């Protein structure tokens, strides 16, 4: 697992539910088929109302250069990120769009579990209201060992929380690899 992640921030608000992350009409694609997997990258965040896309200004497109891959690598969000349905297509969509890390105040339970079990995207937490501090497009560095987020635009630094006891599952590449490493099954 990378210990330092650098990328551009895309900022969202509170209660971004899974219907906003990947609207239901796109769930007909099967994420287990590689050619269809990339479609989730294309439609990632397609359900977020335009004024909420890329705070604080809003109306910022998530993709400009590539229709499948976003210009951004880090999502900064508020409370209860990923609430709503259990669709694993939500973390899949963000990962397919090139998002490596989410930094939110806290997550809905199933979304968090899906992020870890599939090792799609790292769900980190912050006790700060970073959506009021970070501007969409800011260049950020996340140091996972020191648990520090640096904003290169402003030189601000914040403490963030790592994955804690589930880091091992993420580092293994998901629950299956983890279970194999632990000798839980031979598959």
């Amino acid at each position: 697992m990378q210990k330092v992640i650098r990328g551009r921030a895309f900022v969202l608000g509170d209660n971004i539910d899974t219907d906003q992350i990947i609207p239901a009409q796109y769930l007909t694609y099967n994420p287990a088929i590689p050619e269809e997997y990339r479609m989730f990258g294309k439609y990632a965040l397609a359900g977020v109302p335009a004024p909420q896309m890329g705070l604080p200004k809003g109306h910022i497109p998530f993709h400009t250069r590539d229709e499948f891959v976003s210009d951004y690598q880090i999502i900064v969000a508020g409370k209860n990120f990923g609430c709503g349905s259990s669709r694993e297509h939500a973390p899949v969509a963000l990962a397919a769009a090139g998002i490596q890390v989410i930094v939110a105040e806290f997550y809905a339970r199933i979304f968090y579990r899906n992020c870890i079990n599939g090792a799609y995207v790292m769900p980190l937490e912050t006790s700060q209201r970073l959506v009021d501090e970070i501007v969409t497009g800011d260049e950020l560095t996340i140091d996972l060992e020191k648990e520090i987020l640096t904003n290169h635009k402003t030189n601000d630094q914040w403490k963030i929380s790592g994955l804690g006891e589930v880091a091992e599952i993420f580092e293994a590449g998901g629950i299956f690899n983890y279970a194999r490493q632990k000798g839980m099954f031979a598959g």
Partner: protein
Amino acid sequence: MAMTLTEKILARAAGKDRVNPNDNIWVNVDVLMTHDVCGPGTIGIFKKNFGGDAAKVWDREKVVIIPDHYIFTKDAMANRNVDVLRQFVKEQNLPYYYDVGTDRYKGVCHIALPEEGHTRPGEVLLGTDSHTCTAGAFGEFATGIGNTDAGFVMGTGKTWLKVPPTMRFIFHGELPPYLMAKDLILAVIGDIGVDGATYRAMEFDGDGVYALNIEERMTLCNMVIEAGGKNGVIAPDQITLDYVNQRNKSKKPYTVFKSDPDAKYIFEKVYDVTKLEPVIAKPHSPDNRAFVSEIKGTKLDRAYIGSCTGGKLTDFRAAAKLLKGKEVRIDTFVVPATTEVARGLETEQIEGQSLKEIFLAAGAKIGDASCAACLGGPADTFGRLNNALKCISTTNRNFPGRMGHKEAQVFLASPLTVAASALTGEISDPRDLLA
């Protein structure tokens, strides 16, 4: 040491004498359910990890597959997904598959599961759908999981869970005729917020709960996920057992658990249901609560009665009571959750008229049993909000875009409030019509 109902169920599933909140435990799963939206992904992950086409599910009797989301659509990908399920069921020779286009077709999985005898007290039910929590109404632990978790369970019959601390909601009193379980759960979600039960169990108790029929209890448990809850649960009583015994065709034995009187709860709130008014959740969040009386008169474009939350026979009986002999003023869509509910619309009568006749005479459109427009779906989905309409609905979520269009506005309410509003074309209080 005393335990809650949820702790007791999880202790049994883990083969332990006791568990404590926040313990990480491995549990044996009694039933795994999947559907057409998450089934193909789950099957892909299962095959990838358990030997490709040679992979075998851990127990054929414990896997239930219910296509329900995108059924009556011309969308080729959606139809392909049902084919994936059909092929898998054939390969694995699975007995519990409710295929589209056959007499076995059911509709919405969360209502189909109990109807077909797949819900039993004391068991652990996992499903690839967040509203799997509905089955907590039968005194079991039921929660939604993703494809990877489901693929793992499919091969091993096991999963790891963190034991949730339990919040208890006690309802006292008999529900007045203008209120339904939907009002109660919207009141709870309004009180604790859409994240108020994150990582927690929500147990419902009190004489007000036990006065409800089984479908109304399902409505309570169904929406715990809208507060972030891991599971909702109600200890079984005779009403539960009568329903389960009638449906449990496999005669599989089950265990009835109840919380110990001195069990520890992380939160407790008591409601006097006789003092509550009809509740509504305004756009765009299930916790954006108001009393119907506060926003009465808000103009609407559409009414929708359906889904696992509000598409059961009890829901239609309530709506029909108000719609009988009257005409709706806005487009009104009626979608029975399952084919059994659809048959009920034909057989159940109010003063000599079937519920179906009442809805049709009132000018409502009736669709085929499925999830339909509750979650938008493909563009040709029955009742989908394809424009920025204002809709009042008996469904469960009203985040932006949930029922289709991103700028649509969805108000969540009880079938009584939705029916009352369909008749006037504006948000209306059922008390004004029931008077």
